[in-house]
């Protein structure tokens, strides 16, 4: 197996203020392979790729493209040498059509006007050739995320990319969409495209990669074949210690009902029915997991329960108080904690110091607010305690929260929500986009809360997470709960079927 090496990085070092993001990194990519680059957030994966793509310059080290030494000054140079990158956040204009987006920056013109027809034909041809199934005339904003991603891939292929860098491509995809992506990736490699696949999800790497390189703290830890490793070994390489992937939890001992929801109906932002008559309950000391492909009403359900969205019909009882249609504060005051789906939009004020975010929901209560005046000492004591107890990695509690990594930002929310006396925890996608270490940590905290008698409502699109934490599982499909089962009595396959809309025979 001595396939051509199409791209090679040698001894790449890149320093950022306070951080050595890449430390003498070696990396190579063979023709027609999928080479996974695995590492936690902040391990230096994206920095390395940005150097290979010409977004950054390395402080030292060399890059070779097809055996020839190259120096990219901008992505333009990289694109010229056949390298394409699909970013985690798509670079698409939502109001443009697929072909308009694809030709953007590489417009084909005919007598001074855009030659849309030629572009559309080319896009169709590429899309057909690689089994991408993209219609060039659709407006991008109307497409689901998974298809938008394919548009990005076509965009790179349109510019004659032979090397594709995919930065966390599955972070935004449903399990089905991810499967489709893997199929497309294999298709691409069979036609000679080489792929660098950046991720921190272990399962995916083992399914799809030909080789796996693991990075930690700016260094390459090693390169392995998927056959000779497994999830536990990879996780240990990533984190630098043994990681418990299975959540250790004992039997649940559920008690009285804390949250009771009856025939709840909620509209979404456009006024369409998103939650269509949902009823369930959560008891003390148990985790009810709500499984479902994203966009089946889970977001609206949680927003309604937490007072962020008006309720159209139905009833919500918290701790036997009726809270239907109440604003967030009275609901919070009945003992509700909420880990929101969009941590940067709802959960944090990014410009605030960590200390202020750690009292965001209780600033007006003693010890923080006394007669309308904020007590800086109490804020400080609280912040130092939580930073220590929840292992939030920050140089000081007074650093703007925007400076923290995603995992530590989430820990700020978790610390704040779990450190006050609560009866119900509503956690919506609590570990999305986080690294293995943080996921392990947050899962452990959720189980600790359960064992202390807190009722937990867990909403997640990650089936593994639902299976690992829940005592009972409810499956949401098109705004309704199609099944509620005990976690022990259900298989992954069955849940997957229900999530896809198959009706269960028994409930």
């Amino acid at each position, binding site marked *: 197996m001595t396939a051509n090496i199409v791209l090679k990085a040698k001894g790449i070092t890149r320093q*950022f*203020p*306070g*951080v*050595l*993001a890449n430390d003498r990194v070696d990396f190579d990519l063979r023709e027609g392979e999928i080479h996974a680059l695995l*590492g*936690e*957030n*902040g*391990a*230096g*994966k*994206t*920095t390395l790729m*940005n150097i290979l793509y010409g*977004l*950054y310059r390395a402080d030292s080290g060399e890059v070779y493209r097809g055996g020839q030494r190259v120096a990219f000054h901008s992505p333009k140079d990289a694109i010229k040498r056949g390298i394409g990158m699909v970013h985690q*956040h798509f670079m698409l204009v939502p109001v443009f059509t697929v072909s308009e987006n694809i030709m953007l920056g590489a417009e084909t013109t005919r007598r001074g006007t855009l030659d849309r027809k030629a572009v559309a034909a080319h896009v169709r041809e590429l899309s057909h050739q690689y089994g991408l199934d993209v219609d060039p005339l659709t407006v991008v904003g109307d497409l689901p995320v998974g298809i938008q991603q394919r548009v990005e891939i076509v965009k790179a292929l349109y510019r004659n990319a032979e090397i594709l860098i995919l930065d*966390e491509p599955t972070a935004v995809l449903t399990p089905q969409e991810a499967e489709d992506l893997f199929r497309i990736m294999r298709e691409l490699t069979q036609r000679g495209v080489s792929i660098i696949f950046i991720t*921190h999800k272990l399962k995916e790497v083992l399914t799809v990669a030909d080789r796996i390189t693991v990075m*930690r*703290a700016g260094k390459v830890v090693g390169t392995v074949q998927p056959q000779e490793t497994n999830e536990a070994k990879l996780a240990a390489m990533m984190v*630098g*210690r043994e990681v418990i992937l299975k959540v250790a939890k004992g039997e649940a001992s559920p008690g009285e009902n804390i949250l009771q929801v009856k025939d709840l109906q909620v509209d979404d932002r456009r006024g369409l029915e998103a939650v269509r008559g949902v009823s369930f309950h959560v008891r003390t000391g148990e985790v009810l997991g709500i499984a479902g492909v994203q966009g089946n009403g889970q977001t609206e359900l949680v927003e309604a329960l*937490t007072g*962020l969205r008006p309720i159209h019909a139905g009833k919500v009882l918290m701790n036997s108080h009726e809270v239907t249609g109440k*604003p*967030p*504060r009275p609901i*919070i*005051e009945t003992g509700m904690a*909420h880990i*929101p789906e969009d941590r940067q*939009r*709802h*959960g*944090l*004020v*990014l*410009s*605030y110091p960590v200390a*202020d975010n750690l009292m*965001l*929901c209780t*600033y*007006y209560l003693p010890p923080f*607010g006394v007669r*309308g*005046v*904020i007590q800086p000492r109490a804020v400080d004591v609280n912040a130092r305690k939580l930073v220590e107890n929840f292992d939030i*990695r920050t*140089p*000081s509690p007074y*650093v*703007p929260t925007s*400076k923290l*990594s*995603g995992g530590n930002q989430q820990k700020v929310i978790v610390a704040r929500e779990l450190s006050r006396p609560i009866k119900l925890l509503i956690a919506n996608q609590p570990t999305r986009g986080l*690294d293995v270490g943080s996921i392990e940590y947050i899962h452990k905290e959720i189980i600790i809360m359960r064992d202390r008698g807190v009722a937990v409502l867990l909403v997640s699109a990650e089936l593994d997470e639902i299976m690992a934490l829940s005592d009972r599982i409810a499956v949401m499909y098109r705004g309704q709960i199609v099944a509620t089962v005990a976690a022990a009595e259900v298989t992954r396959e069955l849940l997957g079927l229900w999530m896809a809309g198959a009706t269960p025979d028994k409930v």
Partner: protein
Amino acid sequence: MQSSEERTSPQTKSIMRFLRPTLNALGVPLLAVLTAMIVGGLIIAFAGGDPFMAYIGLFQGALGSPRALSETAVWASPYIFAGLAVALAFRGGLFNIGAEGQLAFGAVMAALIGYALPGWLHIDLPAFIHIPLAVGFGALAGALWAAIPGALKAYTGGHEVINTIMMNYIALNLTSFLLNGPMRDPNPLNVIARTPGIAESARIPPIFSGFRVHWGFILALLVALAVWWLLWKTTLGFEIRTVGANPDAAKYAGIDTKRTIVLTMALSGLLAGLAGTIEVTALNYRHELGFSIGYGFDAIAIALLGKTHPLGVVLAALLFAAMRNGGTRMQFLTQIPVDIISVIQALILLFVAADAIIRYIYRIRAREERVVLTRGWGG
């Protein structure tokens, strides 16, 4: 735990990294002022004047004598109040362009209480009651005038920029009507649109006899301190800043965002109302049409130059006041028209608003933007 060691070791460097933006925040306005003065000097030289003489005149006129200092403080008082008004609204995520109207409405109300209240009550009021009443009603009038666009924003989504501009027109025309009609000074010698003089008991006295600088200036400084305290030391201030920084998170945290928006606008209007009130009760002793033209708009420049911080607002207001005040002396000394001051002020604002120019000229690295651009170092 290898990784934790690696993260804590460059701690001092990290601290510097977080300090630098603060230094930048102070540096850019100062450099903007300096650059505007240099460019202004070039313009003076180009027009055939002597920039050094001009600036000497400006300095003398602004700070060169006790009288000059007193006059600068007189100019600064409404600037501080109005600048605080705009800055407070900015902190709450609102752009109050309506300070001009709130100020005018506050001035009318203060004047009315000042000249008419003793007549209505048929008693002579002592100053310690009459002054607070006049100032208080003036401030409340400004608060009310701003609360209207605040409520429109909170409950209907109507944008405050549009609505405060509309409220400006209403206030200015209403003032014009009142000063020409029901509230016009009935003195047969009076030929202009103005109210009667306010009662002695409603007048805020000068600090030193023989100088015009009045206790309103001290009040302005105290109010600046109070605004700082309110914003950073109270739960209400926390609410205002949270709604301003991230309204979604504010709602999530249980803050009544609608109420906070109305309250923020009302407080902003209260401060603007004080600007007008002080001019009536401490300086002119009546309301005269057109006295305030531009305070409310200069206030936006002052708030931005002061980086929407109360201390910065005070410094920026003093600077603007010194330039306005010194301009007269400059014109007298060098025959350079006082309008050059407006040019320099406009340049300051330009450089503060488009701070990339300043960063480019003085090679100040905008580290903040780099981080945003790259979204961190990894992951």
